[in-house]
């Protein structure tokens, strides 16, 4: 059946497409299975009135970027430059920008 190179190539292509299909099925299955977990997290956020995700814990403004002020990263000393590494991975929240978006 796969004696011709073209047959082998189309079979390989078919396998790739089937795997992509499985990806879609797996994603849908996982979304369904994870719904109670996501809902649970949402309920926790609502119950405790949380404003931020726990992504970084090294600095106050990185733990709660939403509640940070523009001067927060510098407030330990007026001339100190921000030195926490997570600062490079967190942009300034849009509402704290030079022209805050509201």
């Amino acid at each position: 059946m796969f004696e011709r190179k073209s047959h082998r190539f189309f079979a390989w292509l078919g396998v790739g497409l089937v795997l992509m299909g499985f990806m879609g099925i797996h994603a849908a299955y996982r979304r369904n299975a994870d719904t109670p977990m996501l809902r649970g997290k949402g309920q926790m956020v609502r119950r405790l009135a949380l404003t931020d995700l726990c992504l970084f814990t090294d600095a106050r403004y990185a733990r709660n970027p939403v509640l940070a002020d523009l001067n927060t990263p510098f407030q330990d000393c007026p001339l100190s430059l921000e030195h926490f590494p997570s600062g490079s991975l967190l942009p300034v929240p849009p509402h704290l920008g030079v022209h805050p978006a509201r």
Partner: protein
Amino acid sequence: MRILEKQKNLVDFTLSSLLRRKGKNTALLVVYTFMIFLLASVMFFTGSIKKEAALVLEGAPEITVQRLVAGRHDLIPAAYLEAVREIRGVRSAAPRLWGYYYDFTSGANFTLMVDESLKDSPGVVHVGSGVLRTLMSPEHGTIPIKASDGSFHFFEIHHVFPAESDLVASDLVLMCEQDYRKVFSIPDGFATDLVLEVRNPKELTTIAGKITQLLPDTRPILRDEILRTYEAVFDWRGGVLVVILWGSVLAFVIFAWDKATGLSAEEKREIGVLKAVGWETSDVLVMKFWEGMIISLSSFLTGVVLAYLHVFFSSSVLFEPVLKGWSVLYPDFRLTPFIDGTQLAGLFFLTVVPYTVTTIVPSWRAAVIEPDSVMR
């Protein structure tokens, strides 16, 4: 049927031709697949975490009111709570008590927070799984906390939040109000900030305006701003990863461009021979089309499937150092896959189509000139 048979013959011939230059084409295939793998991984990761963040933060407070003193976040007096409750359109307002605690034994920062459900349980805490991971001796079931007056308090851990909730609760230590005030020496009648619910979401900005008018030393933060912040955080982080990858993407583009546009003398001779034995220009172009498709489609399918396995089965092991930072408590979370078909289609059209087109154009140039001049 004849058309199909012709195409199969062309694919057979193209594959044989590709296999004659096995080393070069395998290198191209590996680099191409790796490039798509990296780009698709960034795409899957940022897409899923953005979606998850938006879903989880849907329940965040509609308005959070902070008090600022000399530009710094300060405790908010209970009188402010009464004032905001009087604003028309505010359905409910509640104080929040929370703060940061640096645990010098583990070098980790915890978020201490008051939970109303623990009001009758002094000395008891509920903690996130990240907190438990950092404790020196978790088997004791207690957590020592140094109060602001220097005294130590040992709290009993009655509940640990499951690891699935790490994205929101990894560093949380929930306790009753009495314990919280004792640890931080915060007097009664003060809270960290206020959270508000409004009757009509369309009035959010109007109510926020009224709050700043009534209490000029406060700053209201809307839920919309929370959601926008996290959208920006993950766009930025995806951007950072793409910038890091930019060098490799560029190197690949140059490599692929050179491979696709510059026909080697051998390839030109091959086209000349094919024309001399009776192949039409269109046949040569179709053969080159298949060559581009075989390389790019194989790379695309393999790269995307590998990226999916990387992000959703191995928790993005390659990106972990960038995402983790130096945080001791960083949550160890598993992402729920949200695949955006449009993004996937975008990746397809940005990778497969340009490569296939660039392989055809130089071949067309070589195919339209006389066979003898190409072979000479």
